[in-house]
């Protein structure tokens, strides 16, 4: 199987879907001539032309709305947010229109649109450019939210997201674009709403997604050296959430730690912990713990940034706590 970087896998997914369906187009800042701020759309304008790979002015609210409007009448836009920090300017169109038009019209519309781009922190970008907004989107009924952790999932999930008839928020990671992995060629779909066990184990369940999977796997490796077998679960889609995979794992391990990059208050981890409490309470031997970023805007200084972010040591400590060791 070919080994691709994350950005290549996403690029392949978009190219294949654009090939398959002439109504699919890509729009955003620097996606065309510049080949994408993070080179995810490399070569697409050359291949599909400027009619289907469209550079926009810096006007997130406007072009997000153009995407939604075009989806109301049959197109299937992929709207790139240079980073999800800038999607904040577009939230009116995403929340008020993309997410609600179908419902408010009694089902007269479908809004097949993907908003994609990197979310979360990179290195030293400061408070306005280092935000993990997963829970914001997860809070809104009418949206689906996807956050892949490895290139193959990136490809398979993005293809599914483009084919989905609903608005999908597809959150990538700037630091993960260079990560490599085996990616199946051609028609390879990962269904939305289905999680995956990324590592099997019997002693504790660690739930993580997006780049936090790699933190979770690092922690699992460190724990293995101490004889603790952690099971790492990647829900992959945050809304709808694959509850069953979480419950099945917790029924086996009886303990759970959730790792998320976002802020702790009202985070996605809070929702996951709640679901586990609801459906697997009798199987728990310890309270579900959460590791998140600290409850502060992201500081610039690298030593502070490192302190704010989740890391493997913090996860290991939490695992030991739920194991009472």
């Amino acid at each position: 199987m070919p080994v691709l970087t994350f950005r290549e896998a996403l690029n392949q997914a978009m190219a294949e879907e654009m090939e398959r369906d002439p109504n699919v187009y890509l729009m955003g800042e620097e996606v065309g001539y510049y080949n994408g701020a993070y080179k995810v759309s490399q070569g697409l304008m050359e291949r599909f032309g400027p009619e289907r790979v469209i550079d926009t002015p810096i006007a997130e609210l406007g072009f997000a709305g153009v995407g939604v409007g075009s989806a109301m009448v049959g197109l299937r836009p992929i709207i790139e947010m240079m980073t999800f920090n800038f999607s904040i300017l577009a939230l009116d169109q995403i929340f008020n229109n993309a997410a609600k038009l179908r419902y408010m019209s009694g089902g007269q519309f479908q809004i097949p649109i993907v908003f994609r781009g990197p979310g979360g922190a990179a290195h030293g970008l400061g408070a306005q450019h280092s935000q993990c907004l997963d829970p914001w989107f997860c809070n809104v009924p009418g949206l689906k939210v996807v956050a892949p952790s490895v290139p193959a999932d990136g490809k398979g999930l993005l293809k599914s997201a483009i084919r989905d008839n609903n608005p999908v928020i597809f959150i990538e990671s700037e630091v993960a674009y260079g990560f490599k992995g085996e990616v199946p060629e051609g028609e390879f779909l990962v269904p939305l709403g289905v999680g995956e066990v990324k590592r099997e184990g019997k002693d504790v369940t660690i739930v993580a997604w997006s780049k936090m999977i790699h933190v979770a796997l690092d922690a699992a490796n460190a724990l293995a050296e101490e004889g603790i077998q952690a099971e790492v679960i990647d829900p992959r889609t945050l809304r709808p959430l694959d509850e069953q995979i979480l419950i099945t794992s917790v029924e086996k391990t009886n303990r759970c730690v959730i790792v998320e990059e976002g802020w702790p208050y009202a985070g996605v981890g809070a929702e996951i912990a709640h679901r586990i409490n609801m459906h697997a309470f009798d199987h728990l031997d310890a309270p579900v713990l959460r590791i998140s970023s600290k409850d502060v805007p992201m500081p610039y200084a690298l030593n502070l940034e490192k302190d704010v972010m989740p890391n493997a040591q913090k996860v290991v400590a939490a695992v030991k706590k739920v194991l009472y060791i």
Partner: protein
Amino acid sequence: MQKKKLVEMYRMMLLIRRFEERAAQMYGMQKITGFCHLYIGQEAVGVGAIAALRPDDYFISAYRDHGHILAKGTDPKPVMAELFGKATGISKGKGGSMHLFDVEKGYMGGHGIVAGQIPLATGMGFAIKYKKEDKVVVCSFGEGAVHQGSFHESLNLAKLWKLPVIYLIENNRYGMGTPLERASAIWDLSQKAESYDMARATVDGMDVLKVYDVVAEAADRARKNGEPTLIEARTYRFRGHSMSDPVHSHYRTKEEVEEQKKKDPLIIIKDKLLKDKVLTPATVKELEAEIKKIVLESADFAENSPVPPLEAVYEDVYAP
């Protein structure tokens, strides 16, 4: 204009140029991280505009902010220390290159979201009027920012409410890799003021004295009549969009950049001041030496300063 003021403007442009050249070197040595956007090539705009203001007037801008904060009079040491992410930085190491602030000097930031500062400037203008103060605000932003709704909403409010705000477009021709003609339906950007019946001007942003004049005139209008102005300063950035963008990527040619460098704003003012005998080759040399020393000291200061303590993470989230 007084001789002293002319020399001061040249000196400030030189300081900004040398400061940023040093910052670029430090970035290469990974002393500075993240996004770092250099102002090199655009110095005449910020320096000319700020020279036309009083010390207690406000200036606010985007992430390409090193030149602005220095021109507003902030000591280079805490500015360099901020780029290094040190506790002695002007934002205590928590803002970085894009988020410099010096409230005492009336420099109101350093904003990372394109056009995010434009309503803030409008709000400061509102407060000036509300408090009946004799002040003005200058709001700088790139030509890429004029396509955001917040720009248009602000212009309407400023004119409707007669706010003393000067909106200063620093048109360096490119928003990242996008040239103006691929982003804007019109070329003559100050034309946008006409939709709001607002005063407007276009100025050669490579000539610090011309920038000074139009901003002085606009400031006068703002102070006397509470009239806002939209100014387009035509300038050029000699470096890449940020330190991670090459100087001439495929979106502009090497020839174009070299051609523009012939209009280097530092050379334009220096030649003029030499010609007018405001400066002599000897005084130019002295200034160069003085600036070099200041810049080296700022880098040493940054280098030798401590990183912020971990407790700082939780400080300044809320006001007491």
